[in-house]
């Protein structure tokens, strides 16, 4: 059965983020009037935080995952980490945890232990700021991803399959990335095929679509391409989506979201017992 490999420090898995940093990402979302690039930077910082927190134990962060971020803009497709881990393709999650570009302090309401809420200051790590620069070489980004994942799978043939998350507004400027997406989706460890998520940040549409099937009408050809390129949503992720997020998920649902929170993809991948009531009051 696929997607059952144990994720451990001796058999880690991998997340690879591909981030669109093109000029068009400076357009504002119509609803929030916030640039798409800022929304994407927020999303990736949040996903990285969730990954780190998932792997954090009393003694520190356990290297259950290695994580890479490739940014693509007019300079091409390149590793996008800043600071001490700049230039590296895949980095153990503990190093990422300990080397954010900076740590901001933000106010947050937390449980006071007696059923009420109090405001406290929390540390909020930032690895990425919004960057927008020129064209969108999405095809090149996927070519690079194929090389990185080939190497990872050669070194980790029995790992829980790598998860690739492409965040973009969808307008590739170096040709169709579909062939490269297909190549990537067909790669596999002994535990199953790579899972490719396409996360579409669209300023044209106020629609929010999460993990839809083929019967859903998408707003434009960019969304359709990203839908087509994404993996089918694996059964274990469908179950978590239905049971823990209350989503209606079609049988042929794909790993595609439009302007929606993709948190489910982090939650769904188990590294051990995950209390069902930990998610309920987030």
């Amino acid at each position, binding site marked *: 059965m696929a997607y059952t490999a144990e994720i451990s*420090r001796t058999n880690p898995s991998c997340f690879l983020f591909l981030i669109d940093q093109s000029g068009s990402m400076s357009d504002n979302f119509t609803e929030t009037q916030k640039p798409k690039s800022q929304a994407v930077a927020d999303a990736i910082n949040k996903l990285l935080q969730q990954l780190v927190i*998932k792997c*954090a134990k009393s003694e*520190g962060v356990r290297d259950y995952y290695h994580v890479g971020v490739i940014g693509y803009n007019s300079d091409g497709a390149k590793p996008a980490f800043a600071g001490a881990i700049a230039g590296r393709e895949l980095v153990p999650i503990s190093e990422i945890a300990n080397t954010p570009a900076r740590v901001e302090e933000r106010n947050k309401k937390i449980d006071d232990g007696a059923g009420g809420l109090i405001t406290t200051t*929390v540390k909020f790590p930032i690895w990425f700021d919004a960057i927008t620069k020129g064209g969108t070489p999405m095809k090149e980004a996927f070519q690079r991803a194929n090389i990185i994942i080939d190497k990872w799978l050669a070194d980790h043939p029995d790992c829980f399959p790598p998860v690739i998350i492409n965040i973009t507004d969808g307008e590739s400027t170096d040709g169709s990335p579909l062939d490269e997406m297909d190549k990537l989706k067909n790669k596999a460890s002994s535990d199953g095929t790579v899972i490719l998520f396409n996360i579409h940040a669209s300023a044209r549409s106020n629609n929010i679509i999460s993990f839809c099937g083929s019967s859903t009408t998408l707003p434009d050809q960019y969304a359709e391409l990203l839908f087509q390129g994404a993996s089918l949503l694996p059964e274990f992720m469908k179950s978590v989506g239905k049971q823990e997020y209350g989503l209606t998920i079609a049988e042929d649902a794909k790993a595609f979201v439009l302007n929606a929170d993709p948190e489910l993809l982090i939650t769904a991948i188990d590294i051990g*017992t*995950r*209390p069902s*009531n*930990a998610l309920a009051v987030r």
Partner: protein
Amino acid sequence: MMLNYNAKTFTAPKKGNAENENEDAFILTYPNEESIIRIAVSDGATESSFSKEWAELLVRYYAIYNFENETFFQSLHPSLRNQWLDKVNTQDLPWYAQEKLEMGAFATILGASISTISGECNISAIGDSNIYIYRDEKMILKFPIEKASDFGSSPFLLSSVLERNKRADKFFFSEELYKLHNGDLVVIGTDAIGQWILLQEENNISTYQELLSLYSGKFDFNNWLNEQRIENKIKNDDTTLVFLKFE
């Protein structure tokens, strides 16, 4: 007439983890002034941090206070939470440790209080640690989980955050008093071994003799567990097994 009993306990970390990363906890008390013994097992959740400390507190509290109905938690929680925070809340935690602390710790609890005079036994359970009672080599009780397929990776667990415990339907208390007899074998286990037991029984393989061999030392627990793990017969997880044999 007093019931005589012998107890044995075994625990091992998940394969690949160090001994000090085992987040299971257990306790077994001597008879109190009312000749009642208390046994408790708690399994701290992997995805929460400082769960080992939480699991240890839960078994110690069970040994002192018993948890007879769901109201116990409302009265004990502030003290439990404060003790847990005292253990784990140090200055200058990295951002992720602080965040994780606020999410709280999570663990199971399975507690049994047994009168060594009457043999009466009452049981409290939250989460997927399970108890089994065998009489005449047959399983006569499985509690609270009755089917192997009901062991999943996302059980409801007791949390250090009060708000996250408000599911009275997830708190299980034995409604009848089970009466233990001479010869009975009581087995309490965390989820991996608990599921293994039910899987065998569901395939009409009696687990009594194998468990008795572990209890008696005829089988070495660590060797036996490794064999089961290598053959993928048991989930690779922290594993704790507590036996009480009445004779």
